[in-house]
């Protein structure tokens, strides 16, 4: 066996290209989670620690869907349609039953409340689905691979890669070109004024929270066929999404997209340099951003002062 080849191995351009695609796939999933996180943060001023838990519930929901339907070809499509809606309902319940009671309380209590949900969901998931790692098969149509610029790449990952920008566009359209979006942005800007102008602020809060939960649930469903479904996936995603939000700027929609792209790609390449500790490479970036631009790349310095 030729050991020297291990040390002189230099990744070829095809490998690097595949790794870039991997990073971008991860970016798209990260964007789905962090856009919801940043939306809830921007509009409601609540840091929803339970956002990673909703994502995890989405992945497990997809697993349950698969077992219920016995792996029918359409089961994945059904999971994409149904599970995120169910997660949105869970989110709506969290907002209605828990968060609503303490909007008047100190920020500390709001942080602690969503944290309590994280703790409970973490154990509920172990209770319901067990501690073992679960998996969902890829939909049969997308199980193959395609050749892209000479690189063989799984079609499923490519689908996410294509889906991401569409979802980003849809979200942008919803926020900036519909009446609902206008109301949401008005509420984010000045809650009291919006209220005075006749906007039903509590209803907007519920809807925004449900939208964020839907996005997290969708990301969970989409990640299920390509990642391991474990009871600890809530924490890794919430930490990464937080890094995304800090890098991009608190409450900034485009910041979430930019941050997700940066974090996903850097992680994909960081893993080549320090295997198994890719988290550290994105932390270095975050530390840099925090020192140079504490309000994030696309954030608003005033928003930082207000919190």
């Amino acid at each position, binding site marked *: 066996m030729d050991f020297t080849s291990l040390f002189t191995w230099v990744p070829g351009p095809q490998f690097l290209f595949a790794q870039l695609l991997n990073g971008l796939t991860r970016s798209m999933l990260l964007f789905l989670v962090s856009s919801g996180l940043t939306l809830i*943060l921007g509009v409601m001023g*609540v*840091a929803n620690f339970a956002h990673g838990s909703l994502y995890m519930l989405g992945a497990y929901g997809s697993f349950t869907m698969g077992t219920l339907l016995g792996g029918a070809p359409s089961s994945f499509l059904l999971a994409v349609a149904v599970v995120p809606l169910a997660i949105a309902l869970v989110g709506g319940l969290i907002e209605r039953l*828990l968060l609503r*009671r*303490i909007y008047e*309380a*100190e*920020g*500390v*209590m709001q*942080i*602690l*409340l969503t*944290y*309590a*949900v*994280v*703790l*409970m*969901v*973490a*154990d*509920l998931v*172990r*209770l319901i689905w067990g501690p073992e790692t679960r998996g969902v098969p890829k939909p049969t149509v997308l199980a193959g691979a395609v050749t892209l610029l000479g690189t063989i790449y799984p079609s499923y990952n490519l689908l996410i890669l294509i889906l991401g920008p569409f979802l980003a566009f849809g979200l942008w359209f919803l926020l900036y070109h519909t009446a609902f979006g206008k109301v949401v942005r008005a509420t984010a800007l000045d809650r009291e004024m919006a209220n005075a102008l006749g906007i039903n602020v509590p209803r907007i809060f519920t809807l925004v929270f449900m939208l964020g939960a839907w996005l997290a649930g969708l990301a969970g469903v989409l990640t299920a066929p390509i990642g391991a479904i474990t009871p600890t996936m809530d*924490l890794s995603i*919430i*930490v990464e999404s*937080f*890094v995304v939000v*800090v890098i991009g700027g*608190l409450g900034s929609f485009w910041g979430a997209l930019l941050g997700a792209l940066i974090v996903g790609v850097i992680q994909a390449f960081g893993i080549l340099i320090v295997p*198994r*500790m890719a*988290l*550290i490479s994105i*932390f270095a970036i*975050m*530390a840099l951003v*925090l*020192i140079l631009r*504490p309000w994030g790349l696309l954030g608003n310095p005033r928003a*930082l002062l207000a*919190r």
Partner: protein
Amino acid sequence: MWRSGAWHWLVAVAVLFTLSLLLGDFYRHLGMTVLIMALFALSYNLLLGETGLVSFGHAAFFGVGGYTYALLATKVGTPALVNIVLAPIATALIALLVGYFCVRLHGILFSMLTLAFGQVIYTVTFQWYSFTGGDNGIVGLPAPPLLIPPGNYAVFVIFVVVTCGIALWRLAHSPFGQALRIMRENRERAEFIGIPVRRLRLIVFTIAGGFAGIAGLLFALLNRQVFPDDMYWAQTAQVLVMSLLGGIFTFLGPVVGAFIVTVLQYWIATYTIYWLLILGTILLLCVLFFPQGIVGSLQERLKHRLAPPPSPSPLKGEGTGGGGLVVG
């Protein structure tokens, strides 16, 4: 002032020592764990209650305290007494480094960043098998011969915890502690009247980290082992629940919370493995219905019963309880 402090200290040490003599091995171990967790919770509440900072990475410092001792003892081979002194210092230095980044942020951002840093420290410990032993931890730690008999170690724990507890009490009741509370109540006003908010936050973060390191060190020596789980976020959740359940705006609240949560955990561990679910439920109920905590509510009730107008500073009220109550 000093004389009354020394008096409280003596009473607390004597009472705890007498109690520990009455206990069997199991209950002594439980008692030591309670005391160590009480110190850990007190260090945490310095951030949460006194300064209004919600840290989700505090357990990392608890772990670093234990691991510094363990690594020095097994990899470097320095004498145990030196390691005991170095462990809290090293922890405080790491807290200083982490704090340098974290205290720039406020509210939720601070919380998330501490969570992130805590996870990094945990991940490094968990994955660096060749150095930290990964999830196997480091077991069979050497201890100074004097501290090997459980009775002697109990005295050592009582001595250290009571001393640290009184130091923290004095800190909370010093002008420094007053400044922390002003920052908690209104950061902008604190800045206007010339309080260097960021610097004080960094100092309190470092101090809290250092005391958490002492607690971690005591815990490592108690069981003669360290595991990455000591610094896992669930450990922070535990200390958070202790503080909140006991009452974050009282000095002794975290001690009471540490007692309840630790005993509950010992008792409940035989029935269920879903400890986080229980912690989460307690936390949820506390936030929604019982934000004052046990000691906070008791104080409130006492104040109503005693009728005279409330003292201008809430600190005066609990001063009457004094350090003697450290017994918890």
